[in-house]
């Protein structure tokens, strides 16, 4: 079984890190993973996206045109990638920055005011972790406990941030569990 997640947003929103943490959580579970960034001549504030492939067997093509899930942190990302998501996947929409919806009826649309929640927690920088918590809680792509461990590992060098990141994860999870 193979799943792919595309994380997309502005440069600076922590998109690549978000993908890396998920990849880490899956690796700790003993799964095969590949993390593929977009790379190109970008300016500050330009688009950034990455794909994480998680599989129980050796990963073939690392280039994914149709991911199973999408985490869209800004409007251009949602507009560009929502049509590519496979039916049945999760599309997370950061409603703080995205006034529109995916227009898809065959996916699980998860609308979370990611940036607002992060601001309430005291740091907009935690928005990516809010989104990650919400996405994993809804998609169950890895166990939530593994995600907690992976976030702790990632921030091991910046320990004073861990309580904030834990709160961010939890708020994301709560938002995902709330019935729309």
């Amino acid at each position, binding site marked *: 079984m193979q799943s792919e997640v595309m994380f997309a947003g502005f440069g600076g929103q922590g998109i690549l890190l978000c993908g*890396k943490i998920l*990849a*880490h959580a899956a*690796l700790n579970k003993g799964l*095969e*993973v*590949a*993390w*593929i*960034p977009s*790379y*190109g*001549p970008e300016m500050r504030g330009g688009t950034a996206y990455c794909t994480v492939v998680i599989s129980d067997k*050796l*990963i*073939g*093509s*690392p*280039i994914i*045109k149709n991911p199973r899930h999408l985490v869209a942190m800004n409007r251009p990302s949602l507009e560009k990638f929502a049509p590519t998501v496979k039916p049945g996947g999760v599309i997370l929409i950061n409603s703080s920055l995205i006034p529109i919806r995916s227009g898809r009826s065959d996916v699980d649309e998860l609308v979370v005011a990611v940036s607002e929640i992060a601001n309430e927690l005291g740091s907009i920088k935690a928005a990516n972790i809010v989104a990650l918590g919400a996405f994993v809680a809804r998609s169950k792509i890895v166990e939530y406990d593994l995600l907690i461990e992976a976030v702790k590992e990632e921030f091991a060098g910046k320990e004073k941030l861990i309580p904030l990141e834990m709160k961010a994860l939890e708020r994301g999870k709560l938002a995902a569990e709330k019935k729309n």
Partner: protein
Amino acid sequence: MGKKVLMKGNEAIGEAAIRAGCLNYFAYPITPQSEVAEYLSRRMPEVGGVFLQGESEVAVAYMLFGASACGERVFTTSSSPGISLMSEGISYIAGAQCPVVFVNIIRGGPGLGGILPSQGDYFQATKGGGHGDYHLLVMAPASVQEAVEMVMRAFPLAEKYRNPVMILGDGLIGQMMEPVEFPDHLKTEPSNKDDWATSGMDHRKSNKRNLVKSLYLDPKVLNDQNLLLKSKYDQMKREEILYEGYNTDADYKVLIVSYGTMSRVCRTAIDLLKAQGLEVGMLRPQTLFPFPEKAVRDAAWKESCKAVISIEMSMGQMVEDVERCVQGRRPVEWYGKCGGDVPTPEEVMDAVRKIEK
């Protein structure tokens, strides 16, 4: 072997070189492999090594030449246009028989081209690049793990043959993060460097003066020198060929020959075609020079096999080697795309379906 860590290909390549006992890295940054330099600028000082950014790739090639001539283990990384600039130096290094490891994380060409993954430097790597009769030993990894293993193998091979070795990756191998398990630090082999390197007389047993050069004005002497180089390339063909088969036990109707990142896409396509009832095999060269001639020929000549297709992220380069091996006994086709637009499994399936009919 240690614990599995998640690492970007470029960083893993840098770490692998250190674990292979290479403490000299000279380079000039270029996308998509600049993270190697970024990583080693931090790591080399930690292990007492030398990180040096040259003023250009031309200069870097001669820095490598100089350090290697003095018996130091040394390597560089670059991407396509950078390797073109180094190519004069590479020819000198091969001519003077110096063991240097080069990593080319290919980007789209020709010219400045683009910065996305490509396999357009196959000819440059396997057939020359620089002038004169020389070859590099060329290995092409298909994963971050394999890149690590090949980099670590490259140093002893370069020293065994006193010949430059090239790791030919593409932008994806450099940029992608995958789990990596590093083999233990390489055991240093007893060195024969005293026999040839200009490492100083102080610690040597013999009084013979070593001279490293590629200039031989006497035609007979130069011919002998070329025969000596040829004998090394012949030995590589006997001893160093590496390849891997995929679904080759099946009675496949079509044989794909593909390497590096492209071969992974083909693997997915082969699985999907199998589910649709079409058996396709793949031969993946891991060494591009020496090319697995006999393996490709035998796989192509298998009774069930009706056609062969070389699938590359280039406009058809390796296909010439495949044609040479198949010797006209099966139709040999090519499919590929350039410029960073990596073919999808579906596109590979279409290409295979077309020739299968």
